[in-house]
């Protein structure tokens, strides 16, 4: 992703408008990623807000302006990982979030997150770590090595889990 280096320079000097413009380039993907990991909008708001605050405070440590997107995803994925670990019952949380009746997202017809019910079910059938791996690969564009570094796993393990998760979804959709 090509980023305007002038915007990064201004953001480093505390310019919130400049940071906002940088954020605007990637926020939809950030939110999708968080939603597919966590499964509910309330937690998405929490983790993305925290990510933005942390990123704004520490943007001076960003050396390569073109790495802004990846850097934001790294912060966000760490927060999603922590949030997943904090769930008392991760499966329940996610299932409730995707429940057709219970989900606040579903109540708004214009906000149909996963319009293919079968795909939705296939996705929610994955365990939380696999969901995170698939989301990282799909929305953040990370490769197995980068995902492995973020999740503390071997890159081959990540690749295997990613393949299995995608295969399991494909089987589910047959």
């Amino acid at each position, binding site marked *: 992703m090509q980023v305007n280096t002038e915007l990064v320079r201004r953001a480093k000097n*505390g310019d*919130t*408008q400049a*940071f*906002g*413009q940088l*954020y605007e380039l990637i*926020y*939809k993907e950030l*939110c*999708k990623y968080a939603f*597919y990991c966590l499964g*509910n*909008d*309330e*937690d*998405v*708001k*929490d983790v*993305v*807000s*925290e990510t*933005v*605050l942390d990123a*704004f*405070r520490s943007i001076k440590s960003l050396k390569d302006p073109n790495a802004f*997107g*990846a850097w934001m995803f790294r912060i966000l994925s760490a927060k999603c990982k922590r949030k997943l670990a904090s769930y*008392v019952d991760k499966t329940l*949380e996610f299932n409730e979030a995707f429940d057709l009746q219970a989900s606040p*997202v579903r109540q*708004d017809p*214009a*906000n*149909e*997150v*996963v*319009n*293919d019910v079968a*795909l*939705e079910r296939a996705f929610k059938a994955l365990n939380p770590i696999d969901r995170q791996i*698939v989301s990282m*690969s*799909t*929305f*953040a*564009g*990370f*490769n*197995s*090595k*980068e995902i492995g570094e973020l999740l503390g796993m071997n890159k081959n393990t990540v*690749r295997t889990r*990613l*393949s299995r998760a*995608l*295969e399991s*979804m*494909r089987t589910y*959709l047959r």
Partner: protein
Amino acid sequence: MGREDFTNEEKEIIDKIRQSSSNYKVPKELEAENIVNMLNAKGNNMEYVKYDNNRGKKPYKKFIPIIALGAAVAVAIIAVFAIPHSNAYQRVIPSLGINQPAMTLAYAADYKEIRDVLNAANMIRGDKGSYIDGGEWLEDFAPNGSEKVM
């Protein structure tokens, strides 16, 4: 970010996920304009926003620790006071400084005659375990017709 090599089948699923996520509506609070406002309000004072970890959870989940604690206390009370021959009764009560013979006397409420005799004779004062361990001795004090204590 480096690229990952996917098989055609994997690409197909990834495309489906991307396609289905295209309708995702970002929460209003996370729109760029609102994020800039949030940064203007909070970003410069270097303080973390406090988040309620219970947000989005079912209300009863907040009470689970309290209910669990209440249940544990109830079980402890039952173990100590309602099961006279349990270890809890035999060991915990004395360890709390409670006069065990007095408690065992209360337990022997059914043996009214014995209790009356013991009270009258004042035989149990300070004599730890005299009731439980000294069943035969107590029996001597039991009036005719009363049940055997131990």
